């Protein structure tokens, strides 16, 4: 666990940036706009398709691309914890009493609870959808350089959202490191051994308040330094985002066609595998 890794189940931004800046593959030379458009198409596909085979296939293709870019698979599986928790806590409740073949059934306080095959399929389907998009998002982050992301943010968002975004992205690493340092200091003084709920609550609150206060003070210092260097309210980026190559238009076109065909097919076919 590095200073910036505050939790093993949440993606480590330092590690992500390290891969984005150092790891070279055929995906890193691709235009970030192409990867952005592919993300849009993947979201469309998982939103439109109700076919578990299609979604499982999509997930496998994305995972293969992730592995092909020589990105860390073990970390990826650890990072799946949070989206899995969201899906399970959200759909896990609704999966019960879905119509279908009963697999598990019992009653609680006079209410019968039945878990059917369709209920399980529903959970698997939404989990695969979440993991497919998450894996591609991380693949996008880990194969695109920081300067290109900055340039994209500058072009997409209106002011002052772009300014806040760009500065926040820049400060995020400092803040994560600072939070990590504070937590280390607390642990080294025995903070991790406290078992009292009220003491733990107060300690956590003071750590969080300290993070905000230090961030506030740092922002004041940074702002003064920026003013001294001629900052006039515009945090602009001079980097050009690599344009979409001709062959990439072909990839986008093929993928868009596939999304339309699959979506139309899944909507029309129905059947057992279609939820």
């Amino acid at each position, binding site marked *: 666990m590095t200073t910036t890794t505050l939790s093993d189940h949440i993606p480590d931004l330092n590690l992500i940036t390290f891969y984005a800046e150092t790891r070279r593959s055929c995906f890193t030379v691709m235009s970030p706009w192409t990867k952005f458009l592919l993300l849009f198409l993947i979201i469309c596909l998982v939103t439109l398709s*109700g076919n578990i085979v299609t979604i499982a296939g999509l997930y496998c293709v994305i995972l293969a691309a992730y592995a092909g870019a020589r990105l860390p698979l073990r970390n990826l599986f650890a990072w799946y914890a949070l989206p899995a928790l969201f899906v399970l806590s*959200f759909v896990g409740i609704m999966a019960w009493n879905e119509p279908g073949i009963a697999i598990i059934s019992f009653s609680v306080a006079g209410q019968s609870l039945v878990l059917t095959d369709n209920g399980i399929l529903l959970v698997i389907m939404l989990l695969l*959808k979440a993991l497919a998009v998450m894996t591609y998002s991380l693949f996008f982050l880990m194969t695109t350089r920081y300067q290109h992301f900055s340039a994209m943010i500058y072009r997409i968002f209106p002011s*002052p959202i772009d*300014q806040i975004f*760009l500065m926040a992205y820049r400060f995020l690493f400092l803040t994560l490191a600072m939070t990590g340092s504070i937590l280390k200091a607390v642990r080294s003084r025995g903070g991790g051994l406290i078992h009292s709920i009220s003491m733990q*609550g107060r300690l956590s*609150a003071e750590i969080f308040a300290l993070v905000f206060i230090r961030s*506030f003070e740092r922002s004041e210092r940074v702002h003064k330094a920026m003013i001294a260097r001629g900052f006039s309210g515009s945090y602009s980026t001079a980097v050009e985002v690599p344009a979409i190559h001709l062959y990439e238009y072909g990839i986008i076109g093929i993928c868009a066609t596939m999304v339309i065909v699959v979506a139309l097919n899944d909507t029309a076919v129905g059947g057992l595998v279609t939820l």
Partner: protein
Amino acid sequence: MQAGILSVAHIHLEDGSFTLFWVIVWWAIALLLISAALFWVRSVKKTDNRKITLAAFCTAAAFAIFQVSIPLFGGVHLNLTPLIGILAGPAIGSFVVLIINILSAAIGHGGWGMIGANLLVNVIEVVIGYTVYRALKKIFTGAFIRGGIATFAGLFCGNIAMIAIILLSEIQGVSQSKSQILAGLSLLAGVNMGVAIIEAVITGMIIAYILRVRPDMLESERP
């Protein structure tokens, strides 16, 4: 500060949960809200560069704190959306939660297509948190009580918004009736509200601490 079980004061919806129609509807409403906040910041209450820098650090701090698991009841992650409202105000707070939602979607905490719906829930938490905190100024003098009540009110309204959004949109693949879905969601909301109490207490403590050390940081304390 690691824990095995995770809890958050409200859940974030993942991609594929809603149909394309509802994804577009919630995105459109969220964009309208952000446009209104942009108009407010640009034309009505002009924001200086200092505030933009502060908002950026607020975003980074809130995102960093979300990653810390509090070792209570198996591990709790805080959203801090009402606190963002109290610290930055509703307009800048809306920008902050927009950016946090985008950063979160990038790491799998909520879907890209669901940013509209998630943002709507978060903006409600930000606005209610800020409004209740200010409204309670004349009733309670203690920052802890005000902060705690404002946070709980914000998260409570956020939970109601989340349930309303899910009931209206319906989850793809779920064939249960609205009343059955509501029963399931009520159970989830009950758990979320339990975590919201923890977040309310901790936010109250954070605000009391900040007010003691740097009172000028709180936007909602300004006249």
